[in-house]
């Protein structure tokens, strides 16, 4: 793999990480204020649809962006009403919002455009076009440019405005959360709402503000998917990105800079998955890694309870068996032979990593203390 290919993969990682990052920061605001949000996915989808629909009919991508934010905010309002005012179950509300978006976007777009649940493809003007930074060489001449020029032109230049905006959101989120009064209160309301209430600050107001910010960011994320990453809305186009953003949020332990890292990593998985159909690894390395994982699990559970031994030991045994199978099936060709890593393995990595982090084997992820609990004011 040469330098330019690497740059291209990183470039597409950045583009694919952008919706994750925006949704992840959206979830960060909401969850830091104590409102769990499973509905990131639905909000992104609704925003993607409405932004594409408005951009297609008016020809203005900015109106589309506004409409997308509006759609996402509407769903946020439902979530706020259910989980703040009516003290309903936040998880169930989020699930309902996901289905509402999945259903409504198709029903409405089918009625509106009659193209089987898609919007018409967006022409220029209806899309966020890539911006060329000053001095960047065009794509045709890039192979002749020097490495620094390639780095600048391929990786830093040529993204849409929303990519740069999303990257700027990271320091902004950090600043708002950790350096402003609003941020302090927002974090406090997720840890101990009673204390915030005692200080005479409105818990309900703060939580609605957080849910509102979450709506705006999800709206931008959705609009980015439909008007920058792709040219138009397709049924179910969010394809689980909201859940990956949620995974990234946990992976990042609810912190903005970590969120950037997590989203870039998950974006990198997407990019690798898009670019390389076959990833080859020597058979000995693959079975070796699996065997080592299995053995370390065995070592870990040696002095634990019976349940630990059954579950984790079983997992270790499973890994060891897979390793043995790989070794046996490659004996003929020799252990140095290259075998293909299944594509689904790369695709499942974000989820597996999140489970590992949640399990607390690699640094413990501790959510905001009052997350998921409605606040009942004392009378």
């Amino acid at each position, binding site marked *: 793999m040469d330098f330019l290919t690497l740059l291209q993969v990183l470039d597409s990682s950045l583009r694919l990480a952008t919706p994750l990052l925006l949704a992840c920061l959206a979830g960060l605001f909401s969850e830091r204020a104590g409102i769990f949000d*499973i509905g990131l996915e639905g909000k992104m989808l609704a925003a993607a649809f409405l932004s594409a629909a408005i951009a297609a009919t008016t020809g203005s991508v900015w109106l589309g962006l506004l409409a997308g934010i509006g759609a996402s905010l509407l769903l946020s309002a439902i979530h706020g009403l*259910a989980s703040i005012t009516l003290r309903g179950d936040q998880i169930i509300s989020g699930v309902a919002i996901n*289905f*509402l978006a999945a259903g409504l976007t198709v029903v409405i777009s089918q009625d509106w455009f009659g193209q089987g*649940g898609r919007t018409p493809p967006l022409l220029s003007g209806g899309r966020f076009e890539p911006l060329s930074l000053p001095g960047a060489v065009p794509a045709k001449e890039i192979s002749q440019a020097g490495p620094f020029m390639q780095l600048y032109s391929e990786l830093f230049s040529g993204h849409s405005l929303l990519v740069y905006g999303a990257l700027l959101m990271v320091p902004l989120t950090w600043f708002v959360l950790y350096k402003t009064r609003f941020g302090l209160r927002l974090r406090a309301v997720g840890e101990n709402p009673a204390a915030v209430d005692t200080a005479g600050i409105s818990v309900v107001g703060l939580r609605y503000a957080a849910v509102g910010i979450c709506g705006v960011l999800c709206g931008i994320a959705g609009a980015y998917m439909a008007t920058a990453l792709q040219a138009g809305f397709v049924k179910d186009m969010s394809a689980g990105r909201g859940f990956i953003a949620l995974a990234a949020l*946990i992976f990042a332990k609810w912190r903005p800079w970590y969120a950037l890292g997590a989203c870039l990593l998950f974006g990198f998985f997407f990019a690798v998955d898009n670019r390389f159909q076959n990833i080859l690894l020597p058979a000995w390395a693959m079975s070796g890694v699996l065997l080592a994982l299995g053995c370390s699990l065995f070592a870990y559970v040696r002095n634990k309870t019976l349940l630990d031994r059954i579950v984790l030991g079983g997992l270790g045994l499973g890994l060891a068996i897979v390793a043995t199978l790989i070794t046996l099936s490659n004996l003929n060709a020799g252990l140095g032979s290259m075998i293909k890593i299944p594509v689904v393995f790369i695709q499942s990595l974000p989820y597996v990593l999140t489970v590992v982090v949640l399990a607390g084997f690699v640094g413990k992820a501790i959510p905001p203390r009052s997350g998921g609990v409605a606040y009942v004011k004392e009378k």
Partner: protein
Amino acid sequence: MDIMPKWADVVLVPLISLIIAALLSALLILAIGESPVAALKLMIEGTLLRSSGWGYMLYYTTNFIFTGLAVSVAFHAALFNIGGEGQAMMGGLGVALVCLFIPWPHWSFAIIGASLGAAVFGMIWAGLPAYLQAKRGSHIVITTIMFNFIAAGVLNFFLVGALKPKGSMDPATANFPASTHLPTFEDMASLMGFEKMFRAAPANVSFFLALVACVLVWFLIWRTPLGYEIRAMGKSEPAARYAGIGSVKIIMVAMMISGALSGMMAINTTQGESERLILNFTEGAGFIGIAVALMGRSHPLGVLLAALLFGFLYQGGAELALWTKIPRELIVVIQALVILFTGALSLMVRGPLERLFLSLRQRG
């Protein structure tokens, strides 16, 4: 003392929620430019007035009973199992392995074997998140969501790899041997002398298995010490712990029963209908279980009724998509509204009702 009588809580709240959901859907149908009355008539004609309509409806109902019961059992322990979809996918893998690699003499043996396979695979897939919740404190909602995606990956891996017959392009297993095929309602009807009943409908004998599961779950939850412990855990974990009920054990057991029920959904779709394992055979039924359990108030009888309702909506929705310009996704919207009003916004329905009963009582 409760403000409302029990019947109002059990019947009135879900019913009013359903009526609100129906009204909103009617508005949506109006907005599309179709008539809600005509749509309802079409749904009833295509579902209830034809025996094959019943056959399709009961086929969907069977799925929803299993997944609804699965969510219910977890709800009783105050756990939210959102991973029914993934557990059902793994259940399908279990059914496929049992049906493909064990030579069954007759379907009646095969269905027992397939049930075990589905239940064990579903159980394992729910057991891991349960373990992580019980021992490591990882939030079960998040882990079960992640396990849904991982299950989809695992299923995909086997269907494009090891389990795909040589030379086939389809991501699916080979057809199951004929001795594992379950009798459909059509077969059963013609055996009893009713020819031309349930023509070509996929409903099969696993519907009765679902009914048995309803009775068993009722018995488990309300008539056994384990059920008592599960409910005690669900009401208050500290109180249950004080009474000597181990939370680790209850989380594990409740989730594994839940996973087994989700997994058994695959008997209906995989062994009963497609007769081979295909991708996306769950078709979101794992998620519909959430709506079914909420609507049925986590009681097996309620789950059965709600599953019938959703079976009707699914078959009716297919009819609508066939004959009008209302797409199938309308049913997803209805499902979302039902979840919203029975689950998240229940105070909106319950609050006014409680005030009504309060004022009635004060007057009387």
